[in-house]
């Protein structure tokens, strides 16, 4: 019996070091055919499927919910059906450090780097601890000593200097989900620089929605499609906000692909509107609607979630005002807050990366956005269309006398409109 093919965890995107196993489609030892989807893995972006690349019998080295490292071996395809006892041996070798020979995919005559050996000696660690590894370098030993931080080398070194985080006794700890960890990683990318600043502006919404609702199908009374539309045009003028910081310098995207944050009970996702600056308002609305449905159906693909150049987050259902957090590989994010129905206004916030741009530019962007949004309320035709006489509820467009409505103050002290007929006849 021999392994025909080992299945490695695929590198689905350059950002992911770990993927989460979300489904094993066969039982251990089951027959599979080339092309069968044998398992599903969750990446930071989407679900990736893994195909069998040969006919044979499969054994898994992981369980549902495990986090697995990219390029590590997660399954093998065998030329003949393995006996169940064999499978047990394979699985147990993963955890126990027994010296099973002849099963090179699982235990190794581990190779240690000079630095790793030194560190092990200092910490009195036995080589037996590492038989699961083919190669052990200093980082692997550090990870072993400090299992909470298995990220980049620099980070784990930093943690070591600061000392281990001792938790108080009166707390319970619940493990972070894989998707939450990724969210933290994504948001830390820019925010951890500490050079993020947020500015706010109020937008007078009176009349805007009246104008816009006419064009909208799914998102009536929402500013989101219009904000996406206007931002995507404005970003062409403000490339610094359509960029991101790298160690080599500021990387500016050549096109505008606005991402819209959605969170409908299944974790926060930012969905991409490809070629945003070429889309009309209605097209934008339709795309957001479609992507939201894909999100709910869990059918988002990696392509729907990558290469976002600027993010807009809409919390207008809930909050008065908030500070949005910039996404990885972005230099800014725009937040839309709840529309105040009494004051006819909303607060729009813009967080930006100070390493890429500065307050003045960000301020200009926001003022210009405000002016553009408010310009929709000036549209005469639509602005007046909904004006009605408070007595007979007649619409101004039905005013056959072409006199217009008159502004009156009612007995309750409210400003209202009245038509000429009602004014004279009552």
């Amino acid at each position, binding site marked *: 019996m021999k392994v025909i093919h080992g299945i490695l965890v695929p590198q689905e995107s350059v950002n992911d070091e770990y993927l989460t196993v979300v489904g094993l489609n066969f039982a251990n030892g089951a027959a599979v055919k080339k092309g069968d989807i044998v398992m599903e893995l969750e990446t930071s972006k989407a679900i990736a499927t893994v195909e069998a690349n040969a006919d044979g019998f499969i054994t898994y080295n992981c369980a549902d919910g495990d986090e697995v490292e990219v390029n590590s071996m997660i399954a093998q395809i065998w030329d003949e059906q393995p006996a169940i006892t064999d499978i047990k041996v394979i699985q147990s070798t993963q955890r126990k450090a027994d010296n099973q020979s002849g099963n090179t995919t699982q235990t190794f005559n581990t*190779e240690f*780097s000079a630095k790793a050996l030194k560190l092990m000696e200092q910490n009195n660690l036995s080589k037996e601890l590492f038989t699961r590894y*083919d*190669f052990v370098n200093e*980082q692997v030993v550090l990870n072993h000593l400090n299992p909470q931080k298995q990220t980049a080398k620099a980070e784990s070194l930093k943690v070591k200097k600061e000392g281990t985080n001792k938790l108080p006794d009166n707390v319970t700890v619940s493990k972070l989900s894989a998707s939450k960890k990724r969210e933290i990683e994504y948001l830390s990318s820019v925010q951890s620089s500490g050079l993020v600043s947020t500015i706010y502006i109020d937008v007078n919404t009176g009349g805007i929605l009246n104008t816009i609702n006419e064009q909208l199908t799914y998102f009536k009374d929402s500013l989101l499609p219009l904000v996406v539309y206007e931002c995507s045009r404005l970003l062409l003028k403000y490339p610094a906000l359509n960029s991101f910081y790298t160690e080599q310098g500021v990387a500016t995207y050549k096109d505008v692909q606005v991402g819209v944050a959605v969170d409908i009970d299944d974790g926060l996702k930012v969905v991409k509107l490809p070629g945003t600056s070429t889309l009309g308002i209605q097209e934008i609305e339709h795309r957001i609607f479609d992507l939201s449905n894909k999100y709910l159906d869990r059918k988002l693909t990696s392509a729907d979630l990558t290469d976002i150049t600027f993010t807009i987050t809409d919390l207008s259902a809930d909050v008065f005002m908030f500070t949005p957090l910039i996404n990885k590989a972005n230099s800014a994010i725009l937040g839309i807050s709840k529309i105040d129905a009494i004051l006819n206004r909303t607060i729009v916030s813009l967080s930006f990366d100070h390493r890429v741009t500065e307050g003045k530019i960000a301020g200009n962007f926001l003022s210009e956005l405000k002016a553009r949004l408010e310009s929709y309320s000036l549209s005469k035709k639509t602005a007046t269309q909904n004006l009605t006489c408070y007595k007979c509820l007649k619409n101004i467009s039905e005013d056959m006398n072409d006199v217009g409505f008159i502004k009156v103050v009612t007995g309750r002290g409210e400003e209202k409109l009245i038509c000429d007929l009602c004014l004279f006849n009552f």
Partner: protein
Amino acid sequence: MRINHRVIKEALLIRRVEETFLELFSQGKLNGTVHTCIGQEFSALAFAGQLRKSDFIFSNHRCHGHYLSFTGDTYGLMAELMGKKTGASGGVGSSQHLCHDNFYTNGIQGGIAPVSAGFALANKLRKDKSVGIVFIGDGTLGEGVLYETMNIISKWELPLLIVCENNYYAQSTPQSVNLAGNILARAEAFGIMAKSSDTWNVDELMESAEESINYVRNECKPLFHLVNTYRLKAHSKGDDDRGKEEIDSYLERDFLHRFAKEDPATYNKYLEKTNDTITLLLQQIENDKELTLEEYFHPQPETTDTSWKEVLPINKRQVELINEFFKQKMVADDKTVFIGEDILSPYGGAFKVAKNLSELFPERVLSTPISEAAITGISNGLALAGFKPYAEIMFGDFMTLVMDQLINHASKFHHMYNGKVNCPLVIRTPMGGGRGYGPTHSQTLDKFLVGIDNVTTVALNSLIDPSIIYESVHAEKNPVVIIENKLDYGRKIGNAMVRNYSILRNEAKYPIIKITPQLSKPTITIVTYGGMADMVVRAINSIFIETEEAAEVIILTRIHPIDYAEIIRSVEVTGTLVVIEEGSKTNGIGSEIIASVLEQTGRPMIVKRIGALPVPIPAARSLENVVLPSPELIIKEILNLRAE
């Protein structure tokens, strides 16, 4: 009287065609240059005109007369010079590079001599009674490769007639300035029968030429025939400083000139008819098209093989496996020829690749004098004639002596003759140091052997069964250079021990070998080939211990053209690319690999070239060890990479 009116009409046609070329040139209708044989036509008619169609000719820059006399293809010649695709070489070759049936010309002085010898050797091996002529000029007597060839054709008794057209000038330099001694004595010194004639006594010339051809055919021996003649026009066009009196005195002796004077009525009748023929051809040719780029050059896209399988050790030394390949192949394919220096049994070549071969195949194992240019040229001729020659160049350092035959002949033939021929020769040579052989027997000159048009360059290593590479090479239609390694010859294939790495190879024609960590994600990509592969594989575990880097090593077997798919896949994972070659690192193969990978991925990465120091390789052991790349150097460079 051997001169009849058919011959006179043919001579007139040659002259008028060339005069037409000069006219077209001055009208700007010819792209390039023309070397006319005006005044020398009867040499062409006497030799090329009296051959059989199964015979062959190799000619030089002044070849129009030879071409017309042998092929009768006036249309093909004129169309060729006018750059049309209906031309003999599709308009690619023009005046100096013609190919039609058994007629070949090239514009390199002397280079055609060994190629024609190879063609003659092919006839002899086939026991065919065909003969061949190689035309040279007196200027070519300055080229060394001519003498390498004369030595060999005499020793091997090859049916080749050398016709030396002596027009007393090498381009513009008179013979008095650059020719020493006696021309005929040069051939006689090699034991070759030598004769002379001239183009002024045409009867005697025709007769003497026929005798020479018959001698070569019947005796199966070479002959050197000197033809004294004179060209009445410039070497090319504007480069004529000869005195008018001198030229006029030869004009008076010119046969066609005398004929025109003696019988003007007949001459003018012939002239008119010839002119009409040429005018008609010109009208037709002017409507012909030139080759398009697609017709001229159509590279075949290659797909990458991604079915990886384990490399298993073979308990045999590399040199034994190569030797076995030849023993089997020379039985299986009777067109296989092994040629080189010191290859006869019992010696069997400097590195014993040819061990026992000459006993088994005495006719097709050819031990040569020390004449690398002629070895390669003869192989070129064999390859053109349908054989599969394997030329052994004893040390890679001697490849410099091979370069004219490789670059100006082997590499060019297929395309410059518009795809009419293939030249599937194979040149094998060992490179590399580590044996203390010193500056001229230890070099790795690979960088000079890649990037040559139409030439595939492969390199063996100690991990791959050489017969896999050799089988692929045997099937190639184009020239191939195989770089072997002196230290690898004695190594057992696939025997290197690596801990916790998988050694895999794909199923490509020239397999790529990949050594990759069994479980960990690699952190660095190392690309290497040839003799360095063995060193890198042996050092791979120490590299990890010292540098913390789990390397993925990609070993190429074909270094030109390179299949980049696997390198790019690896670098996308590691972001770090280290290239290791045994030659000096600047302007080298590593530079090319890094440039191509950067170009194709378009993303930043950490790169490093490792190679020998740019000095001659010293013989002293401790010094040689530090001049050539070593595991210590590789570890140091990788540590520096991360420190930067």
